């Protein structure tokens, strides 16, 4: 039996070219290249057109960048109707605040459930899993009304504080703790006289750094991109975040005036995330797989 298998294998290796395999390989690369082009093409045009002046863009499409990058940049950030610089700062404050608060408290919640034994532990865990999929939009009405009643219209608090309760981030942290946090460490810290909070902040948190970094990126990006709730909450022009400004751009019929400027504003909203992503893509892509697949 073993001999025939071996013979088969040898026969296989002797074959000069495995045509079906080669065909499949060609097919696979062809589709991958087409998909890559599809994924990148829009961003390529965006990059090209953000560097071109309005009249050039009107004349037609070009595959080569123009020379108006600085001009477009200046006309975007000095625009009187759209406070783009403020928008960038606001988006940074909100997204950064969310990333900090959400990862810290999610790690804390996960640690509470991972390291301690208490009565409602199982129910608390099940509850968090159950609410994981509930969309924020369904409670938006009550949320917006409550925030207005609390005088938090135009405030960033309703955008940042709720991310303390982030079920998906929690779940990722919990998964990570199960694989990377032996409870003996906690025991050892206790014997050395470390208080529970001290243990969490000084011993557990540093161990969790890789998971926190991944989730901080995800939280930052999703809040940088967030549009639905901020659009309902922020009415003061100086408090608006970038997605709201993009929506205003869409409704203001700017296309007729200066396309270079339009492309530049879109580029400002998109490229920071792209650059950070390209630098950290290894961790991010791995994070997607780890975070969402259960078991």
């Amino acid at each position: 039996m073993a001999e025939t298998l071996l013979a088969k294998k040898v026969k296989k290796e002797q074959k000069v070219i495995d045509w079906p395999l080669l065909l499949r390989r060609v097919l696979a690369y062809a589709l991958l290249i087409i998909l890559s082009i599809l994924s990148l093409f829009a961003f390529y045009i965006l990059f090209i057109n953000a560097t071109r002046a309005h009249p050039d863009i009107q004349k037609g499409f070009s595959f080569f960048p123009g020379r108006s990058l600085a001009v477009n940049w200046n006309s975007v950030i000095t625009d009187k109707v759209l406070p783009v610089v403020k928008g960038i700062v606001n988006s940074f404050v909100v997204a950064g605040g969310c990333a900090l608060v959400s990862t810290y408290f999610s790690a804390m919640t996960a640690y509470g459930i991972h390291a301690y034994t208490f009565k409602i532990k199982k129910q608390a865990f099940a509850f968090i899993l159950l609410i994981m999929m509930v969309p924020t939009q369904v409670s938006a009405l009550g949320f917006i009304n409550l925030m207005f009643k609390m005088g938090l219209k135009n405030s960033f608090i309703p955008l940042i504080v709720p991310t303390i309760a982030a079920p998906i981030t929690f779940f990722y942290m919990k998964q990570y703790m199960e694989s990377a946090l032996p409870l003996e460490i906690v025991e050892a810290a206790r014997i050395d006289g470390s208080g529970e909070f001290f243990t969490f902040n000084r011993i557990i948190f540093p161990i969790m750094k890789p998971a926190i970094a991944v989730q901080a990126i995800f939280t930052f990006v999703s809040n940088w991109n967030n549009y639905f709730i901020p659009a309902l909450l922020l009415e003061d022009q100086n408090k608006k975040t970038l997605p709201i400004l993009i929506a205003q751009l869409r409704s203001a019929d700017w296309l007729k005036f200066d396309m270079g400027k339009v492309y530049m504003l879109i580029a400002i909203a998109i490229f920071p995330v792209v650059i950070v992503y390209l630098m950290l893509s290894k961790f991010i892509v791995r994070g997607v797989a780890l975070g969402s697949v259960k078991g």
Partner: protein
Amino acid sequence: MSQMTATPLKKKKGISYAKWGYIFIAPFFIVYAIFSLYPLLSTFYYSLFEHYRSGLKVIGPYFVGLENYKALFTGGDLLKYAGNTFVIWIMGFIPQIIVSMLLAAWFTDLRLRIRAQGFFKTVIYMPNLIMATAFAMLFFTLFSIGGPMNDILIDLHIISQPIDFFARTGTTRGLIAAMNFLMWYGNTTILVMAGIMGIDPSLFEAAEIDGATSGQAFRKITLPLMRPILIYVMITSMIGGIQMFDVPQILTNGKGAPNATSTTLVMFLNNHLFSKNYGMGGALSVILFIISAALSVIVFFAFNYQSDKKGGN
């Protein structure tokens, strides 16, 4: 240092740390109660009242029971927008799941040995992180009359006159679906791949020894064992589909043009929220909640089933 002095007490036998468990999970539950649970319940409550704005006048709140729900279901808009949402979702989802499974199968195929996997994964996942509003604005400018896409199609002599993509139902929906596809197929590919790599490799080895082709191995081993993951992907995508908002909102400037054939359920909700029609907005929210909750329960049980198999935690 204060911890040091407390040590002797804690060293007593049988000390319970249970209280710390509660303290550590308290912020999550307090914040959830204030910012999500209470708003959710108050949304339910609003849905039972007639309460809206007519000009500057506020009508209500008058208790009307389930009248808002009745109005939603008999008004026709709800079903139309639900239909729009479903059609656009499925137009994006079918190519997404097919392409994702194909790519995942190729990426994990040991005989195929695809090179530069890191590059391809990075590229196909990238659109997922892009600001949806900016991405939609980009597509709007690219596909507008006089935009680069029309220019390119004319240069290539595929069309002679520029196409107004946003004046036709099919092209508008198609563009929304295409954007959803671009934004999500990379994510799905990675999930499906993780699912395939979780399968015991000895099964594939055994199949190869028995002379199974790649296609047979995929159909007879990969697919059946992937069922939980596929269910997970499909239902989370459905829940995402129900929430579809940013892309169609920006692409059609909130109008769902042409003729509201690309208005989604959440765009409908957004209109009620902006016009401060609390009753109708509340009722619509409750309907969306029920649909997504039902779907969540399925995911929850699919997940529990899986972790039970692995011995649970």
